[in-house]
């Protein structure tokens, strides 16, 4: 049975259910469980649920150590950017121990990181930094775009034996959607064809999924049939689903809120160009943020980040209905 839940509640439900199911799952981080009425604290006690100091290196490092010692910590990091002060732990410690020990140890941790808060949070709290992590060997990267996937991917991330960075988009926090009750697992590495179409493939990452579906509606009214794919995880990346869609449509548009050269979109475009070139009937179109720090002021912020209209324009260029800008 499914019922409507906000995206953020779906994530919380997954953590709660997994903590019930498996007593090795821990939950700690900044500004959680600071009072006795905290639902996690009440349900699971202060051994498994703890507030930490503002010490990202220690939080993530301790998650690694606890994981090596047999636990499954979920670290609440709030803002994805807070990981940047502890990057060694994320991309040079957690992801390497299983490999360097020839499989003697495992590091099953989940780093829960909110991102993309383009609602006036200005330059340092609005980043879409998942592209920095997708090419890091040993790390998995989840990017849920719907409440149901938020629950299913969090469940899969907690059960996975590898470190997973779980990026949730701040603008989706209160968006409602049908979420299955009880156990719900969305396997890491399985893209979702959210809307079928025949003229163009739009691969949309995270928050861009909603914008891409808006764009597809508008394009349908203009007689253009767009297929919309949500990769759901960037590592592993389900390239097979994307390639088989492009084989059908012959055109690819990738929508990514990141700045172009730091984007996952460029990697997806390169893989399709490399492995699916013969399917392509024209250049891949990238719809990314403009190369600037996100500004505070609303009109400038909106100008910088991609939206449905920019996706529509890119699709029109891909299908040859709009002039390609010089």
């Amino acid at each position, binding site marked *: 049975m499914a019922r409507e839940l906000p995206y953020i509640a779906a994530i919380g439900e997954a953590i709660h259910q997994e903590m019930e199911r498996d007593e090795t799952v821990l939950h700690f981080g900044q500004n959680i469980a600071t009072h006795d009425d905290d639902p996690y604290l009440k349900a699971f006690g202060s051994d498994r649920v703890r507030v930490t100091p503002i010490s990202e*290196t220690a939080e993530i490092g301790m998650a690694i150590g606890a994981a*090596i*010692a047999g636990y499954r910590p979920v670290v609440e990091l709030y803002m994805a950017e807070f990981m940047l002060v502890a990057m*060694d732990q994320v991309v040079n410690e957690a992801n390497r121990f299983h490999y*360097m*020990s020839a499989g003697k140890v495992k590091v099953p941790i989940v780093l829960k990181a909110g991102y993309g808060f383009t609602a006036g949070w200005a330059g340092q709290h609005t980043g879409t930094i998942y592209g920095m992590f997708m090419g890091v060997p040993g790390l998995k990267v989840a990017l849920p775009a719907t409440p149901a996937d938020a629950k299913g991917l969090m469940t899969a991330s907690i059960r996975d*034996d590898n470190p997973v960075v779980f990026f949730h988009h701040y603008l989706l926090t209160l968006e409602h959607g049908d979420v299955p009750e009880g156990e719900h697992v969305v396997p890491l590495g399985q893209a979702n064809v959210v809307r079928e179409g025949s003229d163009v493939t739009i691969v949309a990452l995270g928050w861009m999924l909603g914008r891409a579906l808006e764009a597809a509606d508008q394009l349908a009214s203009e007689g253009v049939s767009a297929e919309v794919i949500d990769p759901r995880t960037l590592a592993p990346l389900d390239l097979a689903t994307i390639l088989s869609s492009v084989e059908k449509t012959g055109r690819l548009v990738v929508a990514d809120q990141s700045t172009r050269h730091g984007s996952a979109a460029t990697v997806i475009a390169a893989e399709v160009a490399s492995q699916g070139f013969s399917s392509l009937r024209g250049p891949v179109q990238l719809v990314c943020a403009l190369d600037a720090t996100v500004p505070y002021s609303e009109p400038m912020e909106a100008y910088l980040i991609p939206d449905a209209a920019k996706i529509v324009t890119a699709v029109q260029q891909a299908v040859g209905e709009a002039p390609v800008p010089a």
Partner: protein
Amino acid sequence: MPDLDGERLTWMYTQMLRIREFEERVKRTFEDHPGVIRGHTHLADGAEASIVGSLAALRDGDQLLTTYRCHGYPIALGTDPKAMMAEIYGRKDGLCGGYGGSMHLVDPGRGFLGTSGIVGQGIPHACGAAYAAQIRGQGQVVLSFFGDGASKQGAFHESLNIASLWKLPIVFVMENNSYNVYTRVEQEDANAAAGEPLAVKAKAYSMPGETVDGGDPVAVHDVMSAAVERARGGDGPTFVESLVYRLSAHGNIIAPPGVPLHFPEHEAITIFGNVEEYEAAKRGDPVPRFRARLIQDGTLSAEDADRLAEEVRTEMEAAVQFGLDSPFPPAEAATDYVYA
């Protein structure tokens, strides 16, 4: 704290010897078998008493995490030196199949949970293992080993704060060898520059801090036993500064391919021209120092000590031969173990 009987003292001396003889052979490999060891290797010679005195305070089920200067601990824990040498030689029969090398030895079955090659970054890992031990509630204690340089890292300060706050069952063991590569501790540490021991850092985190002669395994054992029992009893962490002197340079030379690797002289000589400092450290070498003490107090006869030394030499020669004889891993194994 448990008294050390003759058998235990002999065991400690044996482990010190084994570490020394192993490290001597690692070092000698650069000359005897050029090219067999790649990259960067760091030796524990000089720190044997500190390592063995610390580990002698543990009991089964306790755990530790260390730095990249990591050969000494697993030897004392009982890891097969053949597998260790094969790992340092990058061979298939290596402890970690050639994936880790000298800086990344791991033996979780013996409580050696791992290392970090990045200064200071293993300290929070040890706190995480201690957090796990606290939840498990079986009285396990975790040791976190690191050098004096690491105490200038944020990871150190964040970890000591949270360990004290949560009363984690952990002992922080700083092996202070007075050098961060070739920067002297007074050049980079405010406490050292002010003439204070580095153990005063513990005060900032409301935990006991002690400085001990890391060349005396019994002194180290006594301080560590008290700290370990304190941790085991739920009273939280202790910060132990163990004064050691590494008898080799920080590591073998850092050189591009084509330049034969070797161990240079100690930085006291090469950088600071302080031959006497190094010679004094050699005169105080913890291994012969402990041997003399055990012979003097009748724990060990000179003949037994000689026989022991011969046995250990034979064991470590066999480790070298095993490493040399072990095949390389198949190249295509390089993509195994990326994901669990």
